């Protein structure tokens, strides 16, 4: 089959000694930064991006694949040993993982997380290998209005899901965050007419605002300021690892089914817009609790409660890569940062990339298998090193995060204006955290805004200015009405429900 020959060619690219080394470095660094408490995968990828700048694209993306999977995995260590999940996807792992650590079973929690991540990552990467060409075949049929509608829908889902009133959020907060992101995306020269927008005469702004600067500012600096203002340097209690890392037979038999179930929940949900890693991990946790013969153990160190969500988390990471590679559509913040990395190299993910850059795409997919394998063989032996990273005193940890953040920002373009922006977005991120404004719509708005505008103008150029083009294309019409319902329904609900109560 065609997919197999492509994949084999991909392995031929990825298995050169140099690329194997980049993959290994990527996995190690990704895990090392991802392990740090409070740093999620999106921040990890953003901070480490400049490290790949000197490499040729194929090697850079192979290293990226390693960083991506490493970062996704690293978060579980902090959740289990410190109970400080770095991002929403690690929250469920923290519940039972930390309970296991308190009972002296931290080593087993780490082991089931590592092996589960490997199983889920591998199965989900197989899924990606076969889903991506199918998506590409579909994507080729999509026209500009359909793309426009698809992107609008994905922004609408993110905003609606994250800002939904029933989840304790304000739909208005989600919308404000989204439009702020879209606004940031318009800064700089308009690619079609060359007009400067919102640059205020600052030459550095003409090139636009880098997604990496915004992501690092909102996440890393924002989080640092937030922790400084709320908890300060109070040290978290860490649970030491005792005994062997090996899983007992009982642990294995309680883990393998949750691993597989988590995988099948995580992969498809990770692939749909706004799926991210939060929803699949929650679903996996609730499912395991429902299926378990000892639901009372959940919350007190049930191994299924670590195995399932961790598998779902990693599978969703692979799931998110399918629409990213095949359609150029990021469905999570981490995918948005990866898309920014592609753009840094002048590459545009999407169906065309499979045609024009088949070696790169398939080399990247093959390296996901390899990175996943390295993750397993490196992580279990290196676990004591990760534990030592976790015990860095907080003042040094956050001092170091600030240094890493400015390193990642400054080395992008070597200009000081980016550092000012880093602070601005750090402060904005801090304020958003204080109020509970979601950050994700902002990042996705920033990266999708210019793409949406491009597709909009392309559509109208094709239709010669006829706006009905979005309604006469059936796919576009369907997606747009779905998007409108998603955003307007919670607004409507927020007002009617409250009026009914008061």
């Amino acid at each position, binding site marked *: 089959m065609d997919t197999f020959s492509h994949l084999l060619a991909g392995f031929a690219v990825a298995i050169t000694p140099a690329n194997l080394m980049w993959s290994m470095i990527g996995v190690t660094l990704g895990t090392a930064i991802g392990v740090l408490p409070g740093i999620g995968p999106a921040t990890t990828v953003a901070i480490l991006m400049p490290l790949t700048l000197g490499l040729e694209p194929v090697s850079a993306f192979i290293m990226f694949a390693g960083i991506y999977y490493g970062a996704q995995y690293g978060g579980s260590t902090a959740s289990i040993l410190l109970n400080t999940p770095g991002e929403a996807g690690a929250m469920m792992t923290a519940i039972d993982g930390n309970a296991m650590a308190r009972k002296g079973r931290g080593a087993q929690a780490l082991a089931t997380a590592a092996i589960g991540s490997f199983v889920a990552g591998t199965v989900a990467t197989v899924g990606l290998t076969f889903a991506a060409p199918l998506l590409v075949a579909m994507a080729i049929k999509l026209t500009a209005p359909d793309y426009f509608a698809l992107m609008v829908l994905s922004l609408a889902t993110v905003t609606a899901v994250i800002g939904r009133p029933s989840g304790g959020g304000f739909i208005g907060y989600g919308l404000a965050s989204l439009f702020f992101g879209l606004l940031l995306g318009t800064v700089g020269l308009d690619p079609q007419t060359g007009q400067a927008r919102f640059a205020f005469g600052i030459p550095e702004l003409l090139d636009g605002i880098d997604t990496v600067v915004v992501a690092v500012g909102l996440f890393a600096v924002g989080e640092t300021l937030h922790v400084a203002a709320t908890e300060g340097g109070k040290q978290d209690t860490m649970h030491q690892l005792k005994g062997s890392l090996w899983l007992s037979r009982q642990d294995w038999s309680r883990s393998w089914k949750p691993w597989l179930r988590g995988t099948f929940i995580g992969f498809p949900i990770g692939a749909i817009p706004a799926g991210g890693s939060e929803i699949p991990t929650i679903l996996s946790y609730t499912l395991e609790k429902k299926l378990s013969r000892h639901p009372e153990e959940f919350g007190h160190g049930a191994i299924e409660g670590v195995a399932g969500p961790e598998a779902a988390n990693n599978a969703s990471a692979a799931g998110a890569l399918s629409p990213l590679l095949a359609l150029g559509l990021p469905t999570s913040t981490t995918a948005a940062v990866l898309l920014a990395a592609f753009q840094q190299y002048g590459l545009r993910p999407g169906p065309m990339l499979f045609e024009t850059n088949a070696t790169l795409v398939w080399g990247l997919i093959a390296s996901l298998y390899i990175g996943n394998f390295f993750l397993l063989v490196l992580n279990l032996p290196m676990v004591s090193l990760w534990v030592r990273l976790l015990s860095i005193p907080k003042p040094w940890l956050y001092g170091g995060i600030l240094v890493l953040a400015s390193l990642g920002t400054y080395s992008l373009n070597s200009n000081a*204006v980016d550092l000012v922006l880093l602070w601005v977005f750090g402060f904005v991120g801090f304020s958003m955290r204080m109020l509970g*404004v979601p950050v994700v719509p902002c990042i996705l708005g920033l990266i999708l805004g210019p793409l949406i505008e491009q597709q909009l103008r392309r559509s109208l150029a094709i239709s010669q200015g006829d706006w009905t083009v979005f309604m006469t294309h059936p796919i576009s019409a369907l997606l747009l009405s779905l998007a409108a319902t998603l955003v307007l329904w919670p607004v409507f609900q927020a007002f009617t429900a409250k009026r009914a109560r008061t």
Partner: protein
Amino acid sequence: MTRNMPATVFGAIVLALGIAVLAEAGNIPKGFGYDVVGPVMLPKVIGGGLVLSALVILGETMLRRDEAAADLAMLDFRPVILISAALLAEAALISRLGWIPVVTVLFAAGAWGFGDRRVLFNLLIGLGVAVLVLIAFRAGLGIDLPLGPLERLSTPAN
């Protein structure tokens, strides 16, 4: 002064931003005739969207109590100011003084912000981190971080 104060202030800021965006969008030169959308439309939509979100926020704030927002009185703003100052100083001085001094200070400021009061000790550690990163980036990756005054030492005059 209610507990909804932060949300109301936020709504007002978003409203002001939306109006500013709408005003500034009017200053963007129009595109060409064949470009139906032009460079002005999206900014106008965004400005309108911000105004709309502000109205939704203000509406929501009036209709219900905001339990999610943190209690502002509990916050310690001193570390925030200190770290902000260090970041802005870094931006202002990195071209002139180079990577090493500004990052040394940034690290120490971060550590102070998190309650570590050993200034000299942390400056030393910050210096170590800065030098290590600089060497790793120069030698390992070929990415030049600015040296500042040290530039004269690294490139021998000939």
